[in-house]
């Protein structure tokens, strides 16, 4: 059985936290470039171009694209034939976050008690970690620094089966309309449909990791994505909410089996600084 020392996981998480915050993925930059061409508003075009310029500056000078370096969300896909040695995996991941946020001069944005003390943990731990067991003997690590400007505008609704795709469309568009200028448009809209409440929410977050604008493999879902995107871009919110034709760069829908009586839908909004980085160990 293949062995992997968890110290390697710490090292990977540290580097990925920094890389994710400094380097905007090329597909996001490309989508922003296309948006700058499509935008009708002069101010809107200027804003998108400044966002591109900012991302390029951050990559070049090795500084964070955005000061909100977020709560660190980490997806681990652990091969079932891999033996992790040398310590506690959860602690190794947290240590990677601690080191990455320190060495990368990233902002520490986590408070321990949400209700009362709201005391900053000062090292951005704990991260939110999702672990899946998959075939193979590798470990895939995906790091997603998620800011709250967009996260706060997200939403979830337990629709009933009668609402159907039309109900999903309506809820997604309403959520984006209500979010307005707050989530730093142009945004990427992650939609999770199905499962139970928790699964829908997680799917909506995973949907944000898809290559920007890549359609869902199922034709009916891809069509719904296109329709919702067109309707969102007719809302007029525009770049930074100052009016324009590009409110969203993409809508990504992910689906999962659900109960005979259920149609949960979750909308996770992602700002234009759609940051994530990954590595296979």
């Amino acid at each position, binding site marked *: 059985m293949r062995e992997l020392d968890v110290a390697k996981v710490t090292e990977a998480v540290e580097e990925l936290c920094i890389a994710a915050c400094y380097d905007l993925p090329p597909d996001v930059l490309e989508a922003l470039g296309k948006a700058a061409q499509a935008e*009708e*508003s*002069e*101010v809107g075009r*200027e*804003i998108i171009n*400044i*966002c591109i*310029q*900012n*991302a390029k*500056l*951050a990559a070049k*000078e*090795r*500084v*964070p*694209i*955005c*000061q*909100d*370096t977020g709560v660190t969300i980490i997806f681990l896909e652990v091969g079932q034939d891999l033996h992790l040695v040398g310590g506690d995996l959860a602690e190794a991941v947290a240590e990677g976050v601690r080191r990455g946020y320190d060495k990368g*001069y*990233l*902002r*520490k*944005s986590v408070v321990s008690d949400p209700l009362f003390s*709201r005391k*900053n943990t*000062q090292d951005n731990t704990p991260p939110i970690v999702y672990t899946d067991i998959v075939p193979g003997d590798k470990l895939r690590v995906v790091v997603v620094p998620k800011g*709250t*400007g967009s996260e*706060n505008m997200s939403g979830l609704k337990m629709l009933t089966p009668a609402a159907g795709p039309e109900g999903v469309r309506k809820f997604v568009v309403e959520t984006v309309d209500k979010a*307005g*200028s*707050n989530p*730093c448009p142009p945004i990427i809209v992650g939609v999770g449909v199905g499962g139970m409440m928790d699964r829908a929410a997680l799917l909506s977050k995973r949907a944000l990791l898809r290559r920007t604008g890549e359609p869902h493999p199922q034709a009916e879902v891809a069509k719904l994505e296109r329709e919702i995107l067109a*309707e969102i871009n*007719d*809302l*007029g*919110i*525009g770049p*930074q*909410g*100052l*009016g*324009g*034709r590009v409110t969203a760069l993409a809508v990504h829908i992910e689906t999962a089996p659900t109960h005979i009586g259920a149609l949960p839908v979750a909308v996770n909004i992602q*700002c*234009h*600084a759609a940051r994530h980085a990954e590595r296979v160990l």
Partner: protein
Amino acid sequence: MPEPIRIKAPLAESDVKKLKAGDRVLVSGVVYTARDAAHKRLVEALEAGQKLPFDLEGQIIYYVGPCPAKPGQALGSCGPTTSGRMDPYTPTLIARGLRGMIGKGSRVPAVVEAMRKHGAVYLAAIGGAGALAAKTVKKAEMVAYEDLGPEAIRRLEVEDFPAIVCIDAQGNDLYEAGKAKYRVAR
């Protein structure tokens, strides 16, 4: 597009009244950082009759929680945070002399009403463009609430910090106007 208007902070009421929603501005001078937790403490201090850590008169508050400065930087990446979260506290601060705010996103009617009544302006910076914003910060010093980490109040000296007037002292709102212009009825 017309050239941006240069403004010097702190602001006089007459400076604020000249600005119109949609104007692009370059801010130079002193601004104070404060976001959620610092606003809560400022308003609690006022309610308890205590002196604030800085004089609000004429000042601009910038809603930002910056990244730590790398060697050679005055401050790390420092784009605006969502202003709406400060709405519950803002009318109280405007009534005490706050003259300007820099943030991103729309404000509630109570804030706009306080701005009209007392003469204050709301500027938006580009959310997510924190690396560029850091280039305009020449000096940063800790003023209060250091325990809050990124939420502490800092005094920043900025030079040509770019922003757009989103709500002016007459209550004109660029968010509303901009959206209405490009919205397609379905």
